[in-house]
């Protein structure tokens, strides 16, 4: 057993619950602490620059509000579980909100009047100013306003908890829709702009930084209403398999249509998602099927990219001058060979040892590529530039959208191959190795051959992604091939659901797509990314789209 295998025990560790008052204070304290952390880490200020609803509420305010709403909600739920009436429960929510508000206000007063800045750089007058609504920044009035607002928000959260389940969902969906619209303003604005006939709507719905107030009301109410209507329409029950199929079709439609009708940026992001899908499918063969951890996966991506560069660039280092269409299979093949070579020495290494060995190999490749010693062949830190774009009969691919469709086609192809391999004797052998190497071998499976095949196929997929990547960017630099990419691909697999092909797509959408959309929060992007990883795993431990719905939902 190791990190990359299972870890399990049959019993859970339960938290002992306290009295409702204690639980409310606890919930409030959590909300308050979250808000304080959010402020002191500096995220408040950067998110305060973005409006959700134009000129009315900023993203930062929304986040803090959500913390407190959540605290009130949790307090009320826990009170209701102990049998409190709705009114009392709301009282507990208010208590939680009060605690949160007090904590937050206290922290702000501390920031305003005690110099914390030598250690906490974000504890700035600007922060105090930003959270002040009434009164002088840092004054008692300002603090009182915060406390009042906290109490109110806690009560509202609690009140929401007292709603009937369907209404609660409706409220939640309404808010989520609004938040989504505000957060991804640029995407939706682009969408409106491009959809025929809707272009005129754009300035009505979106201001410069967020949703206009009127549109906000329409969106929130509309989404909530829709949710209620859908909930109450009698639907014929859908079999799980049909449902999955429908979801699958929807996913494909989404993948094809959305980039078409939005702007270049969405296409660009979609393109990156596509490349990660290719890579993740490769790693899925290694890790998801054969259980071989590979933290040096980025090396194959690099091999593909550099092969493309050396085959299609006008750089003097370029060995040959091929067209993209010839270079692509060449890059794939060379990456596959690299996979084979990688696999050979580490065949007998297992589990975490394998993780480290591959990580080491990946780093070796990266350093080689950046090194002065290899500069005459690989360009060193200046990389290789001016890689020709693919062209087909005089028509050159150059927009992100075109590349996206290229990636999509390749991903579909690779997905098909993956699926076929998975459901064949080879795939079964891989699974068996993952489960118990010794037994698999005793059943006649040649471990060496099977593992090498997994490495080779996985590497080929990654190399293909790398080749497309190089052609898209038009240049390759060693700094694009960091360890972080390997880790990212691993996270995609697990978040999506290990061993699941649709999971790979969903995982890439979430882990590549969303952070791209959050690019504007620059320095906090990885903070949010980290939080997203944690939260996703807590909500969907098996991944967002697990391989097969195994029957043992509650079981060890």
């Amino acid at each position, binding site marked *: 057993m*190791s990190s*990359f295998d299972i870890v399990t025990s049959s019993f859970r560790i339960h938290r002992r619950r306290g009295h409702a008052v204690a639980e409310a204070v606890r919930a409030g304290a959590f909300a308050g602490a979250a808000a304080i952390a959010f402020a002191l880490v500096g995220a408040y200020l950067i998110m305060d620059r973005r409006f959700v609803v134009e000129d009315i509420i900023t993203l930062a305010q929304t986040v803090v509000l959500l913390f407190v709403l959540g605290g009130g909600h949790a307090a009320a739920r826990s009170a209701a579980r102990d049998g409190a009436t709705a009114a009392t429960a709301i009282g507990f929510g208010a208590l939680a909100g009060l605690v949160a508000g007090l904590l937050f206000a206290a922290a702000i007063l501390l920031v305003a009047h005690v110099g914390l800045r030598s250690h906490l750089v974000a504890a700035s007058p600007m922060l105090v100013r930003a959270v002040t609504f009434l009164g002088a920044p840092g004054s008692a009035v300002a603090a009182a306003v915060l406390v009042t607002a906290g109490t109110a928000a806690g009560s509202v959260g609690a009140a929401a908890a007292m709603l009937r389940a369907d209404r609660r969902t409706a409220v939640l969906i309404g808010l989520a829709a609004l938040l989504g619209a505000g957060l991804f303003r640029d995407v939706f604005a682009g969408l409106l702009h491009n959809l025929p006939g809707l272009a005129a709507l754009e300035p009505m719905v979106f201001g410069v930084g967020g949703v206009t107030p009127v549109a906000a009301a329409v969106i929130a109410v509309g989404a909530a209403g829709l949710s209620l209507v859908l909930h109450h329409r009698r639907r014929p029950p859908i079999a799980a398999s049909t449902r999955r199929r429908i979801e699958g079709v929807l996913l494909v439609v989404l993948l094809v249509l959305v980039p078409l009708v939005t702007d270049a940026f969405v296409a660009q992001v979609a393109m990156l998602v596509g490349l990660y899908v290719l890579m993740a499918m490769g790693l899925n063969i290694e890790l998801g099927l054969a259980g071989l951890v590979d933290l040096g996966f980025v090396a194959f991506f690099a091999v593909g990219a550099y092969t493309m560069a050396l085959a299609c660039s006008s750089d003097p280092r370029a060995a040959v001058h091929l067209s993209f269409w010839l270079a692509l299979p060449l890059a794939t093949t060379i990456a596959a060979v690299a996979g084979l070579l990688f696999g050979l020495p*580490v065949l007998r*290494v297992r589990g*975490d040892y394998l993780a480290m060995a591959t990580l080491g190999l990946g780093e070796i490749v990266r*350093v080689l590529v950046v090194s002065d*010693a290899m500069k005459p062949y690989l360009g060193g830190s200046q990389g290789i530039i001016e890689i020709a774009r693919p062209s087909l009969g005089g028509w050159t691919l150059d927009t992100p959208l075109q590349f996206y469709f290229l990636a999509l086609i390749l991903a579909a192809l690779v997905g098909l191959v993956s699926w076929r391999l998975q459901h064949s004797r080879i795939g079964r052998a891989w699974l068996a190795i993952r489960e118990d190497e010794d037994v698999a071998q005793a059943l006649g499976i040649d471990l060496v051959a099977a593992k090498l095949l997994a490495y080779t196929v996985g590497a080929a997929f990654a190399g293909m992604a790398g080749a497309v990547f190089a052609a898209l960017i038009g240049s390759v630099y060693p700094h694009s091939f960091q360890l972080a990419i390997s880790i990212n691909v691993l996270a995609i697999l697990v978040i999506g659901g290990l061993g699941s092909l649709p999971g790979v797509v969903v995982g890439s959408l979430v882990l590549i797509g969303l952070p791209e959309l959050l690019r504007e929060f620059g320095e906090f992007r990885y903070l949010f990314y980290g939080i997203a990883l944690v939260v996703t795993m807590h909500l969907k*431990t098996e991944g967002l789209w697990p391989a097969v719905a195994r029957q043992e939902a509650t079981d060890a």
Partner: protein
Amino acid sequence: MAPRHERLEALAEWRRQSTWVDGVLLAIRLGVAATILVGFGGSLVAGTYSIGNIASFVVFGLTIGCIYALVALGYTMVYGILRMINFAHGDVMMVGSFGGLFAADALSGAGVLEAAPLLSLPLVVAAGMVVGAGVALGVERIAYRPFLHVRSLAPLICAIGMSFVLQYAARGLFGSRNRAYPGFGWMERTFEVGGLTIPMLQVVAFVAAGVMLAGLLAVVRLTRLGRAMRAVAEDRDAAALVGIDVGRVIVATFAIGGAMAGVAGVLYALVFKQITVFLGFSLGIKGFAAAILGGIGNLPGALVGGLVLGLAEALGPALLLEGFALPAPYQFKDVIGYAMLVMVLIFRPQGLLGERLADKRA
């Protein structure tokens, strides 16, 4: 030498039992040996470095090796019990290092640091340990405990997530500038042993690593908690069945591992004198490498792994690459480290002191 026919027979026997993979592995081994020989020989011929230089390299390597070892100890502790790499460990170390810094700043502000440097050091280290342990507990609470009963890689991904969170939260909270670590007068001294200048700090690092290892070994081998830890490591359900509170044992392990990271963080800062919020990532990887090299789950292995890795990095470019006349050989420092790691794993897939991963019991 055995008679000819016996040798032939042995060869035939080898051929009967081996496959092409054995051949390839043999070739790799020979290739490695040849490379090392050529590089080493070439380096000797090149004669860039004096014996004194090499001796200094050994001292450098041992110092950084001690730090790797301390990080590796934390990994190995947690791994031993959960069979899980704590990916956030490097960042726990970073936060611990900041804890020590703030304590030192406070002490310095109160004038204690200058007045009683000998007394202040334990206080600073303790601060690092407490902060490290605290953060490690947070990591356990968020990334491990909720997943004790499920079968998935979720803890691993959560730990990676926590690593990002710690790094970038620290950046947001403390800023991204490099921070100077205060020196403790007596530690800045050096002394001579056989013509070799040895800084006091190096000795401190060495002693610290040794003491920590001894302490951990004592805990694991001799105490009730230690025995419970080993039991939980082997079979969590069975441990619960003999009355061990599994949750508590895991918490204790994380706390110890975190404290270890705190020590490593402070020690790192004392040796290298400046810290940033990003130091955790690369040191974390090195610590992981050291733990694997020594055989993960094995405490003495962590020390050995750390020292060997440190030595390889310090000596490798000088002793191996010089012979190949490569430009900028120190760019390959990490390559040497990782290559050595991979080589060791080829020869000993279980690490230097590790036990065979799977004794094939049927």
